[in-house]
């Protein structure tokens, strides 16, 4: 107890030092709580919105439906079973549904949509789309051919409340089915994926449309506890028997689960980096605090204190600091997290990027998860106590007499001492003193430079990883789909309408080819369509390409895994991605039907034979696109001789914006525009921006903790040398020279840390840049991101790294001014007396 009291007094004996240590623990802990809360909030929103708007917590299908998703696997709407399920414990609500795909024709053009037939009375008890209606109303029990759709879909299809829309699809019997529906409501869930591609109609209307009288494809359920959905699903299986599959949301949304896992892994990495830096900061302070008091410990030992008691004393001191830091860090971290948890963090500037993640919208609400708060608290507390063990052990082994005399064994290598003994100016002298001071206490310097080096290396590596991630996304998008620059009619990219085409496309093509940056140009037509195999219908972005020019612009021909690429004279061939082929259950050489809406609003369809299958390892490319010859597309769309796009490949990707700008000068006043890939893929650009933003937040935390570490080290260093500064001042050294010397020390420490960090970071990037980092464990997560494959190759882009490195260096130097000023303000008399 007495030791504890002594430890408590020791902690407050040097308030400044204790406050610096506390600030390292507090800032680190608060930052960790907040960062983790932010990621947890994002994940929670993703799950909650995805399940509450659309999926429900559990779905029950006929066994095998989840994999096949064909109408042949529908089931009778068994009201007795429905009632038994509804009365099961933990089931709050149950609603029958029909889910399938169709093509929605509005006033403008056709779009592939997901149709959900719902019971207007039961559905709102399971999902919450009814609450997201922004115009008109939700479906009602007596509605017949009424439809509600997302605001984004309505905008693109040119539909508003009161308009008539047509759903065209393949019915259960394989026939082409169509029905007219009156739009009665528009919803805005804030989730792009739902708002741009989902329509809801009454269950009875869906049964009529799909020829599924008396049938449904699934029941959606809301249960009392979403976390326990797996267990509840198991219990429900005893009710349904083996004819049905009962799937909890984790099985229904595997991509989301993997994305959340991916987020979690990223957050563990970030949390780990901050932990290491905080550990070093705290270890440093404790080490210094003990070394500074060598003489005092000698006296304690001489008075008969046992080694164990000395260890206890040092441990108690760090326990006290750790406990206070724990309290403050939790208070601040929880306050900030709960504040933003209520108000939300406005990322609407990055809405497009956020909405690519299912369930996320522009506002993120950080979430406090007690298990995570507890974990970071325990680890932070441990790291603020454990580093004391080493100095405590060292001190306990001191010889009292030597300790009282303040003898500290020199570990400086002789050659270092004799090096740099020449030199003339005061600058050189102070540099020399600064460098030698760094080696005077190697542990302290190693820890400080090590923290800087680790922080920077981690940053270089993670940033290069992210750069690699984005380079791959951009390159793949450009190589397989979007060109560097595309010339298109204004507004065409918004809805891919066949009514929009390029006037004088031949002239535009030859003009574009003459631009010095352009190395290839190819005409295209792109349109939304539905593709039907004998058993299934899927949405498709159909692209008509010139088989001889297109390979000069994109590289799809290099990833054909089966069959062959298109040829100029192909009459009826189509090229599809591996995923879509699997979804449609097609084989090479088999036929399928493509249906689309023509410029005049009528439907056009054509039969094509599968000539080639490509595989890019990215699900979106491999599932959403189909390629036919340009002339075939013109013929299907009644657009003879017309094209909608001229795709350009440039010498370098970086020239895209300048080239688009040049081309637009010639196109001024016309209805045609040239767009760079950045304009064509704003989602990708925003994703890059939002990820960078998050990295800068992490970087800011690293900076703060490193700055505290540097201040701490130099502060300790100044305290340790109080008498030395006193002597220097007594001999006529001006205070500004003392400031200079301390700042030089920080420059030297910073340079060592930055050089080491850069080297380590570059080594890591080179190693993984060659071999790649395999993320196939998160295959679902990566495949939801356009352009991304499973293996990421980190790329070192110096342009992206030099500024943070310089800022880190400057932060360290600025952090030195406080201890430097303290050194300079010392009174020589008091300083010389300092024990």
């Amino acid at each position, binding site marked *: 107890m007495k030791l504890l009291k002594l430890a408590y007094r020791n902690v407050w004996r040097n308030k400044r030092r204790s406050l610096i240590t506390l600030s390292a623990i507090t800032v680190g802990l608060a930052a960790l709580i907040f960062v983790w809360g932010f990621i947890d909030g994002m994940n929670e929103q993703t799950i909650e919105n995805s399940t509450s708007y659309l999926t429900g917590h559990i779905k029950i299908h006929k066994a095998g439906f989840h994999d096949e998703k064909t109408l042949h696997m529908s089931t009778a709407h068994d009201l007795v079973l429905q009632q038994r399920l509804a009365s099961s414990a933990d089931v709050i609500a149950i609603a029958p549904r029909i889910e399938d795909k169709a093509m929605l024709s509005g006033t403008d053009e056709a779009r592939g949509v997901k149709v959900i037939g719902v019971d207007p009375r039961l559905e709102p008890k399971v999902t919450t789309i009814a609450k997201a209606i922004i115009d008109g109303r939700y479906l009602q029990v007596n509605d017949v051919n009424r439809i509600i759709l997302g605001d984004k879909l309505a905008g693109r299809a040119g539909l508003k409340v009161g308009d008539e829309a047509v759903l065209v699809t393949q019915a259960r019997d394989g026939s082409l089915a169509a029905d007219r529906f009156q739009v009665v409501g528009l919803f805005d869930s804030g989730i792009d994926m739902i708002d741009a591609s989902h329509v809801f109609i009454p269950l009875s209307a869906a049964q009529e449309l799909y020829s599924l009288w008396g049938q449904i494809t699934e029941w959606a359920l809301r249960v009392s506890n979403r976390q326990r959905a797996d267990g509840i699903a198991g219990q429900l299986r005893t009710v349904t028997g083996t004819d049905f599959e009962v799937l909890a949301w984790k099985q229904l949304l595997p991509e989301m689960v993997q994305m959340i896992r991916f987020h979690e892994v990223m957050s563990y990495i970030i949390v780990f980096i901050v932990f290491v830096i905080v550990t070093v900061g705290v270890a440093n302070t404790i080490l210094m605090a003990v070394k500074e008091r060598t003489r005092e410990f000698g006296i304690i030992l001489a008075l008969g204190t046992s080694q164990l008691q000395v260890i206890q004393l040092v441990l108690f001191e760090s326990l006290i600091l750790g406990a206070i830091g724990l309290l403050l860090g939790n208070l601040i971290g929880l306050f900030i997290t709960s504040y933003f948890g209520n108000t939300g963090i406005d990322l609407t500037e990055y809405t497009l990027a956020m909405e690519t993640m299912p369930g996320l919208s522009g506002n993120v609400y950080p979430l406090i998860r007690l298990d995570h708060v507890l974990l970071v608290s325990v680890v932070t507390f441990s790291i603020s106590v454990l580093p004391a063990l080493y100095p405590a052990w060292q001190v306990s082994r001191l010889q009292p007499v030597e300790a009282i005399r303040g003898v500290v064994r020199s570990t400086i290598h002789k050659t270092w001492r004799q090096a740099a003994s020449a030199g003339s100016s005061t600058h050189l002298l102070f540099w020399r003193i600064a460098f030698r001071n760094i080696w005077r206490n190697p542990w302290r310097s190693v820890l400080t430079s090590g923290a800087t080096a680790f922080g920077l290396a981690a940053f270089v590596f993670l940033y290069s990883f992210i750069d690699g991630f984005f380079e791959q996304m951009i390159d793949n998008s450009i190589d397989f789909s979007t060109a560097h620059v595309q010339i298109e009619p204004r507004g065409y990219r918004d809805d891919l309408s066949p009514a929009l085409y390029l006037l004088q496309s031949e002239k535009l093509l030859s003009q574009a080819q003459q631009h010095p940056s352009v190395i290839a140009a190819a005409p295209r037509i792109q349109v939304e369509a539905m593709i039907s195999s004998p058993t299934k219908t899927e949405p498709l972005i159909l692209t008509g390409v010139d088989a001889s020019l297109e390979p000069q612009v994109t590289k799809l021909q290099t990833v054909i895994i089966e069959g062959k690429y298109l040829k100029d004279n192909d009459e009826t061939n189509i090229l599809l991605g591996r995923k879509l082929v699997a979804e449609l259950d097609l084989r090479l050489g088999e036929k399928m039907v493509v249906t689309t809406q023509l410029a005049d609003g009528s439907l056009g369809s054509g039969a094509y034979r599968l000539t080639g299958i490509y595989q890019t390892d990215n699900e979106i490319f491999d599932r959403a696109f189909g390629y036919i010859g340009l002339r075939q597309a013109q013929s299907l769309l009644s657009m003879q001789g017309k094209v909608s796009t001229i795709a350009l490949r440039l010498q370098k990707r970086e020239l895209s914006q300048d080239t688009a700008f040049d081309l637009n000068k010639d196109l001024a006043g016309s209805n045609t525009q040239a767009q760079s890939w950045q304009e064509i893929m704003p989602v990708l650009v925003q994703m890059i921006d939002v990820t960078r933003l998050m990295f800068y937040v992490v970087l800011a935390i690293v900076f703060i903790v490193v700055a505290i570490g540097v201040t701490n080290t130099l502060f300790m260093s100044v305290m340790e040398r109080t008498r030395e500064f006193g002597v220097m001042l*007594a001999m006529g050294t001006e205070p500004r020279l003392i400031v200079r010397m301390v700042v030089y020390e920080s420059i030297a420490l910073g340079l060592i840390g930055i050089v080491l960090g850069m080297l380590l970071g570059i080594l890591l990037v080179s190693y993984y840049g060659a071999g790649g980092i395999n993320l196939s464990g998160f295959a679902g997560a990566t495949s939801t991101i356009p352009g991304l494959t499973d293996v990421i190759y980190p790329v070192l882009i110096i342009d992206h790294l030099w500024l943070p490195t310089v800022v880190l260096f400057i932060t360290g130097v600025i952090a030195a001014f406080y201890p430097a000023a303290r050194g300079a303000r010392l009174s020589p008399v008091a300083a010389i007396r300092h024990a």
Partner: protein
Amino acid sequence: MSIVCIEHVIKDYRQNGIAVQALRGIDMIIDKGEFMALVGPSGSGKTTLLNLIGGLDTPSSGRIWIGKQEIGKLSKRELSTLRLWKVGFVFQEYNLIPVLSALENVEYVMLLQKIPDEERRKRSMAVLAEVGLKGLEHRRPQELSGGQQQRVAVARAIVSEPTIVLADEPTANLDSTTGGALLDLMRDLNERHQVTFIFSTHDPMVMKRAKRLVQLKDGQIVNDKTKTS
């Protein structure tokens, strides 16, 4: 010729919240080339007076002139310059800069004075040889004995040819043989170069060698005796 003139100096300060009057009206004149010692029990004001003479501190009242400069009227920067050019210090605990070699420690003041490389090096080597440290110029303080360190401190104090050298208990940490030798060295420098030395001390060896003894008690001069040789 007087180089230090002290006129009714009083020095008060607070120690742990308690007001202490360290000097209670000191009047004294020190001439060039003196080899004098301030003696008296602990707390008598020896070190305080030494600090005031060295411009490390300023008096609460009264006046101190070093040459023609009155210390109380100087800014911190001017005090710094005064110390740089006119005062050399030798401390009880040597207080060498541990990361600099003996030679670099001696050169330090001249570096601040911007004395050219060659001259600085020549003078430093010469002074180190004079204090008996030839061959040890490149050793760091922790590689030297206490006596050797104090010799470096003396060399550092005299190398820039200051008007006065202030030595606060310079022999307190040395054995009698080493202390005696160091005092003989300083006495020799005093006689040959006319360097003024002012000691604060309890050491009988210092008192024996000093030409003038000023005895302090409770912040006042109780005896001021110049020996006749």
